[in-house]
């Protein structure tokens, strides 16, 4: 008997789309993908959004999300083609032979039920174990996955544990029925880097201990390199390259794979500080209404004209709160902000139109930052009308100039946001903020929702525009690779305090404080065995635990 657990042959998957103003029609999103997975092995599926990697993962459970349907090919699990078996058999397969770990455990756990009830449900339902046996096994898995208080954590509700812990609970949920195959769908993407390592290590050890096979789906090649035996690179529903992890990382054959391996290749020369900063934040302490503790403690930073200050930290570090204070959305309890040589009113209401114009903002979610019923021309034209009273031909000329600057061109002027890709939407948001001719732009996680190659394009664009428009960026991010790529100075934030601040070369050179060391060492690196090395050398617990 062969050891092949999952055999996929010429898998084709389609969906019905409902484009605005057009008749609904069927499209194909996966065009004939084939692969094999042996028992106890891990196959990484990697690609950007729209590559079809999640869709393929779910197809191994004969499941299509939304209107997605498997239109052709074969999926063999344990020697039978699951695309031709009855619905009753598929139900036994799901939760019994094949289980699933989703990207967001927070959304995938039922908020109204205890964790234990949900972890053992599939095992009991599929009659693999009695309730008692399943609970014992769950507690064992909780311990194996490094969860605190494994005997009692199951009695809690999902909102009572942290994000990283819940993601481990989800892994326990998937492993509890002793499946043959687990589909991991971006299991660490939503976590902070320092937490990601712990979860990644826990998953890797659990896979090794239980001898289960896994499909590991992610967009992050460095992450998948740590856990998988083989890797398949996907792009727009096609296989680009399929080989062992060693071969894909160290000897990629295809151009696209090479681009993925070498992504983040931007070089940016650090600029010297000028005598007169455009923004200086002095002793800012702030708290939200209704909370009885400060979320920012005595924050001092400076930003120089035409330069970039990166504010880096994990979720809850206070970096977005700092942006809210600078924009006036959250008046601070103490401290003051000087901008372009004048003191800014702490409250948004007290700021002049000139203050507002010179300090613009770009957001993480470009989709929701634009009115879906307005054309690109209207969106970019609005600040031109509002701040400069431009009308008619003059306004249109300036809009076209801006569209050229963001490398989209005049043909985009009458399009709606829904007709743009994620990267194009973010470019339009950049153009809108530049239209106000600001001295400074706050960029709040502007590349976090984008695929790496697209994000790279946006960062290059921002650097080019900085040279042309001489604008300063306050760049808020959790991603250290982005920080390296574009900043002149860096502020590392941890629990509402700036723990390290200075020019880039100084902040990123040893000796490090413990937190910066943890943060820097947690960024996945694209070589095999990195995970084990870094876990062995850690000095400090993750912030998220």
């Amino acid at each position: 008997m062969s050891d092949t657990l999952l055999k996929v042959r010429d898998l084709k998957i389609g969906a019905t789309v409902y484009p605005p103003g057009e008749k609904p029609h069927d499209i194909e999103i996966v065009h004939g993908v084939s692969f094999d997975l042996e028992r106890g092995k891990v196959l990484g599926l990697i690609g950007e959004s729209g590559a079809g990697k999640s869709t393929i993962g779910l197809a191994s459970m004969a499941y299509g999300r939304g209107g997605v349907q498997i239109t052709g090919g074969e999926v063999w699990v344990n020697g039978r083609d699951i695309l031709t078996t009855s619905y009753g058999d598929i139900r036994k397969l799901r939760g019994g032979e094949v289980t699933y770990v989703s990207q967001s455990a927070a959304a995938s756990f039922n908020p109204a039920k205890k964790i234990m009830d949900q972890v053992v449900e599939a095992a009991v339902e599929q009659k693999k174990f009695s309730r008692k046996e399943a609970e014992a096994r769950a507690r064992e898995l909780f311990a194996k996955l490094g969860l605190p208080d494994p005997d009692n954590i199951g009695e809690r509700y999902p909102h009572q544990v942290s994000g990283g812990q819940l993601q481990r609970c989800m892994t326990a949920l998937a492993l509890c029925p002793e499946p043959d195959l687990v589909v991991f769908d971006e299991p660490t993407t939503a976590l902070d880097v320092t937490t990601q390592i712990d979860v990644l290590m826990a998953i890797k050890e659990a896979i090794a201990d239980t001898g289960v096979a896994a499909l590991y789906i992610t967009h992050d090649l460095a992450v998948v390199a740590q856990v998988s035996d083989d890797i398949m690179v996907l792009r727009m529903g096609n296989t680009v390259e399929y080989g062992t992890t060693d071969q894909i990382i160290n000897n990629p054959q295809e151009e696209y794979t090479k681009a993925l391996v070498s992504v983040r290749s931007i070089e940016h020369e650090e600029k010297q500080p000028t005598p007169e900063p455009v923004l200086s934040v002095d002793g800012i302490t702030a708290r939200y209404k209704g909370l009885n503790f400060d979320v920012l403690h005595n924050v001092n930073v400076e930003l120089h004209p035409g330069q970039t200050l990166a504010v880096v930290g994990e979720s809850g570090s206070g970096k977005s709160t700092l942006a809210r204070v600078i924009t006036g959305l959250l008046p601070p309890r103490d401290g003051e902000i000087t901008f372009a040589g004048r003191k800014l009113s702490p409250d948004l209401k007290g700021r002049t139109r000139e203050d507002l114009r010179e300090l613009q903002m770009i957001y993480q979610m470009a989709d929701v930052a634009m009115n879906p019923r307005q054309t690109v021309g209207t969106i970019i034209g609005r600040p031109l009308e509002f701040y400069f009273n431009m009308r008619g031909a003059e306004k249109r000329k300036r809009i076209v100039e801006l569209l050229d600057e963001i490398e989209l061109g005049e043909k985009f002027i009458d399009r709606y946001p829904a007709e743009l890709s994620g990267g194009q939407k973010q470019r339009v948001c950049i153009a809108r903020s530049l239209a106000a001719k600001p001295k400074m732009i706050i960029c709040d996680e502007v590349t976090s929702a984008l695929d790496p190659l697209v994000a790279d394009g946006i960062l290059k664009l921002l650097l080019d525009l900085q040279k042309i428009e001489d604008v300063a960026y306050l760049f808020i991010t959790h991603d250290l690779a982005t920080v390296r790529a574009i900043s002149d100075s860096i502020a590392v934030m941890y629990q509402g305090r700036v723990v390290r601040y200075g020019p880039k070369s100084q902040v990123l050179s040893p000796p490090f404080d413990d937190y910066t060391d943890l943060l820097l060492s947690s960024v996945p690196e694209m070589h095999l065995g990195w995970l084990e090395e870094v876990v062995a050398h850690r000095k400090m617990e993750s912030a998220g635990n």
Partner: protein
Amino acid sequence: MHPILKLVSQRLALGLLLLLGASALIFGLTEALPGDAAQAVLGQSATPEALANLREEMGLNRPALTRYFEWLGGIVQGDLGQSLTNKLDIAESVGGRLNNTLFLAFWAALVSVPLAIFLGLLAVRYRNRWPDKLISAVTLTTISIPEFLIGYVLVYFVAVKLGMFSPLAMINDSMSLGQKLNSIALPVMVLTMVVLAHMMRMTRAAILNVMQSAYVETAELKGLTNFKIIYRHALPNAVAPIVNVVMLNLAYLVVGVVVVEVVFVYPGMGQYLVDHVTKRDVPVVLACGVIFAAIYIGLNMVADIVAILANPRLRHPK
């Protein structure tokens, strides 16, 4: 203090405050009506002297605020005042009527609430297929027809043609439970038809909303059957909106049955209120208004409290 206890006591306090406001509003509105109790007793042809004498006797010349607090003080002690027309104690005559109305509402709720939730679940299970469409079509039809028309149609076909159940829903204390139920069968049917659509559609919408969530996908990928997914994973998260609409309809069953009671000549609060409005018996109208307001506010408060209790984040804080 446990956050639940705090929230619930806040709701209770708010409910009492609201009831106080409602009583002031009801009192103020009857004050604003032209004429007063003296005028109502003596009629249009009364002489000014007689009116003045009666006003003095009834204490109507004192400021409205004084009379409001007197009236309110009476209510708090269970004294709803005296009817103008028959001089009977209102609390006594209302007691039996209220019992009858609650009896009717109770049985209507007992039939309609489980039926509505079951039909809602069924509609979700077979959504956009014929059972769903049939359920929606039938319930929407019955809610669209005025209840008095449904009442008369039922009386004609069920009671007159088929000879089942009584066309008049008269009940009294000497009847056995079976006889009473037989007597109120038709009004219960009408009320069920009126409230069914609203509750069923809300159950369907609330559960469908929950069905889009990632945890329902997780349940599907555990290989659960559709009914278990709906029952175990969707329903517990849809409790708050469902309870809200159920309580609104229960309140309607108590407060809004006026028309149905009149159609079936049922001796409940609705009949009682309508009778005394036509006789301009202000104290009775005031008393009924306050009782209805109390029931309405009370049921909505229960809905709020259930919604708070149904929220695991509030029940089990971090």
